[in-house]
């Protein structure tokens, strides 16, 4: 059940109205839990068993971590981490390792072939395993008490708005909200629905429209002109933003309607002045996770190495973040390039500061934003390409300045409309975030307008959200 489906709209209506019909929190937790099970099972029902298994493991591990001290405490944390990473390793990374072992053995003149797993990746696996791990780590660090109520803990992992593509939440934020009886508030309903509609708009009107260009250019990289290929990758940056942030808007809006506030996942990343700034604005919940649970512990344990500690910690963190996105070399390269960019920024921070101090602030900002934007645009080729070879071919196509086809999958009028929509999206997010809910009249007008626009300008091609595959 994707957010941009009719099934979700009916499901959301039933669950939300029923939620407010119930007068005690226990009933609401069970309703949301059962609803979340239905939501998850509507993708592939059998995979609820895997999710259930990891929930039970982490629930028990949390209780035992809290109960024990010393080595036993650490041992239960390790059990929880192994269980979560083990599930990821089997379902997401096993075939990648088998493939590479085979390729490696061929390099040494032998052919070692292990059986491949022919199973679909459970949807949202990387998201909910990371959320589950943050719980046991926080209990281990004594920042969070172990949750005694199994249903509440299960709902923390399975809460349907953020179950399959985040935001990757922390227990300190969500668990207290799930336990507390949250009364009906019209302002929350307005805010939540307005945000959901904005998310639908970004997904079906912008992202799925831009997808036509991106799909066309990536499947015609050999016979498209450099301009067409550049347009394709430029549109891809906006597509993936509108797709993923659109999903996050729907998730945050759906939770907000029930008076539950989830963490923000994006903060206008197109206006980032450098790569460090970019990673504080893009997929915030994932990168704050890596910062808290990978980068910080690494830099602490490697502190004796001096500046090498920063280099190593950044490389390892961004290697893992690339690998998190997909079991493929192009994702790893994508992560490492960003890691190297951050290392470069770290070592040149003083020189850059001096350089920017010599020019007017606005000029410095424009240069910083432009360079960061172009860097992200070009590195996105690795993120989108099917494999390393396709990524390199795409790069070659752009920089060969060839005169192939300029057709990018839509006519001029639709290209103009797409550019206008992207501009509108940037303007609305930067300037008018709360404008349409300040009065009921504005809200009603906005709601009707968004429904009509989403229907008439929406591209309903049953496109899944890009981040579902992770």
């Amino acid at each position: 059940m994707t957010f941009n489906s009719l099934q979700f709209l009916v499901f959301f209506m039933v669950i939300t109205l029923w939620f407010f019909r119930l007068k005690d929190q226990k009933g609401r937790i069970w309703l949301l839990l059962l609803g979340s099970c239905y939501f998850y099972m509507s993708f592939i029902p059998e995979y609820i068993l895997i999710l259930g298994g990891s929930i039970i493991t982490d629930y028990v591990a949390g209780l035992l971590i809290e109960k024990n001290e010393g080595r036993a405490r650490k041992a239960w944390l390790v059990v929880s981490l192994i269980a979560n990473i083990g599930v990821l390793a089997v379902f997401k990374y096993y075939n990648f390792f088998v493939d590479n072992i085979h390729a490696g053995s061929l390099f040494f003149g032998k052919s070692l072939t292990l059986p491949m797993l022919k199973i679909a990746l459970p949807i949202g696996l990387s998201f909910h395993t990371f959320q589950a791990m943050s719980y046991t780590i926080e209990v281990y660090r004594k920042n969070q008490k172990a949750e005694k109520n199994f249903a509440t803990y299960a709902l923390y992992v399975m809460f349907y708005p953020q179950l399959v593509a985040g935001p990757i939440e922390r227990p300190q934020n969500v668990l207290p909200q799930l336990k507390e009886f949250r009364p009906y508030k019209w302002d929350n309903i307005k805010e939540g629905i307005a945000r959901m509609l904005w998310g639908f708009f970004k997904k079906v009107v912008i992202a799925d429209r831009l997808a036509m260009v991106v799909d066309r250019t990536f499947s015609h990289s050999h016979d498209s002109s450099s301009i067409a290929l550049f347009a394709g990758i430029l549109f891809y940056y906006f597509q993936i933003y509108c797709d993923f942030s659109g999903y996050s808007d729907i998730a945050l809006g759906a939770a907000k309607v029930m008076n539950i506030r989830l963490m923000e996942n994006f903060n206008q990343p197109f206006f980032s002045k450098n790569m460090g700034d970019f990673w504080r604005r893009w997929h915030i919940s994932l990168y704050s996770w890596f910062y808290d649970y990978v980068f910080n512990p690494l830099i602490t344990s490697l502190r004796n190495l001096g500046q090498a500690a920063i280099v190593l910690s950044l490389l390892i963190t961004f290697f893992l973040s690339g690998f998190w996105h997909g079991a493929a070399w192009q994702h790893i390269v994508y992560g490492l390039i960003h890691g190297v960019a951050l290392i470069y920024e770290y070592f040149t921070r003083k020189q850059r500061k001096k350089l920017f101090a010599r020019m007017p602030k606005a000029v410095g900002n424009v240069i910083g934003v432009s360079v960061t934007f172009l860097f992200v645009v070009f590195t996105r080729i690795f993120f989108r390409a099917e494999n390393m070879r396709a990524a390199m071919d795409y790069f070659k196509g752009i920089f060969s300045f060839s005169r192939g086809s300029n057709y990018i999958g839509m006519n001029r009028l639709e290209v103009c409309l797409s550019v206008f929509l992207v501009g509108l999206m940037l303007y609305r997010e930067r300037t008018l975030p709360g404008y349409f809910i300040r009065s009921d009249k504005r809200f009603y007008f906005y709601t009707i307008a968004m429904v009509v626009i989403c229907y008439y300008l929406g591209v309903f091609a049953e496109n899944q959200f890009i981040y579902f595959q992770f």
Partner: protein
Amino acid sequence: MLKRIFRDILIVSGLILLWASTSRTAMKYLSDKRDNNTWWGTYQCLNGDLVSMAHLDAVARFNPRKLKQNFKQPAYEGTRKTDLYLDGDSHTWHLDITNFAGLSAFHYFERTHGYRYHLDKDKKSILLIEISERYLQSYFSAPNMFDEVYDTSSQQKNSLLRCGPRAEIKQYASLFESIGLSELFNKNINQNLECNLFNYNFIMPMFEYKAALNYYAFNRASGDVVISNDRKFLFYKETVSRTDVGSSYYAVTADDKARIVDILNKVYDHYKAAGFSEIYISIVPNSASIMQPDGYNNLIPDIQNDPRLRMKVIDIYTVFKKSKELYFLPGDTHWNFKGKQLWLDVVNERLLQDTAAH
């Protein structure tokens, strides 16, 4: 109070809607009741499957010319001693024994359903596999596709004829099927919901406005339908997208083609052993392969002309290519009346040759 009643009505309606859209029984009941032209009836697919998928009824150029469809009844005076088993798809629906020359019996079955057959040893039994180009690769690429047929091949009296891939049965799915959960998670729920919520004759103008906007402003059709480069035809996206295996432009390797030929040979050997005197294959080309041939992957000619192929070919691709006539409907995945008649003519010619040779 009124608000609460309204809220409860919405909850119950939503639950009923979800249930009705997952239940096959409920959907069948509803579609039977709504299969009419009243305002609450369902949208009738009158102008072609692609036109209806894209709601382009308002664009006249894609609507078919209404022709009287009476296929020729071939004259035959000799003894009728040939049984034809036609393994077909929607291209060969609504045919009967009168459309074929010199048959003593005509058996039609769709490959996905299977068919129990009993060969009459006193007659000549011919198996004709008619398949759309877009399904060719997916049907004839699976290495284990004929296990079921092989398993039953010894029972000559009542063998199973199924020229499609064996359904992959996931072991773990049986648990959910046994407790009835598989229906609750019906994969067609969104189509069913769309049908129950919006597929009413009185709402159709809204869909048609949107389709017309896309067509006239953006030069494209909605959903899974693509407009041809000359803007005269609609194509099913699956048949023109370079990433779909059923596409005319999908990069098919020599190995892929060889694999298809190998499997066709296995099919041939199997049915020969089962008692059929001849096995034919007839691949109906995607309309894009004929109408928009630039970049065509040559799947049909390469398969048909492969010297290793033992199965006999009823070649409609070359006939369509050579002719300047139009053999496809502008807004449909299928051939038009002329195309189907031409195919029947070619098949009948072959049947008569075979009968004469027998």
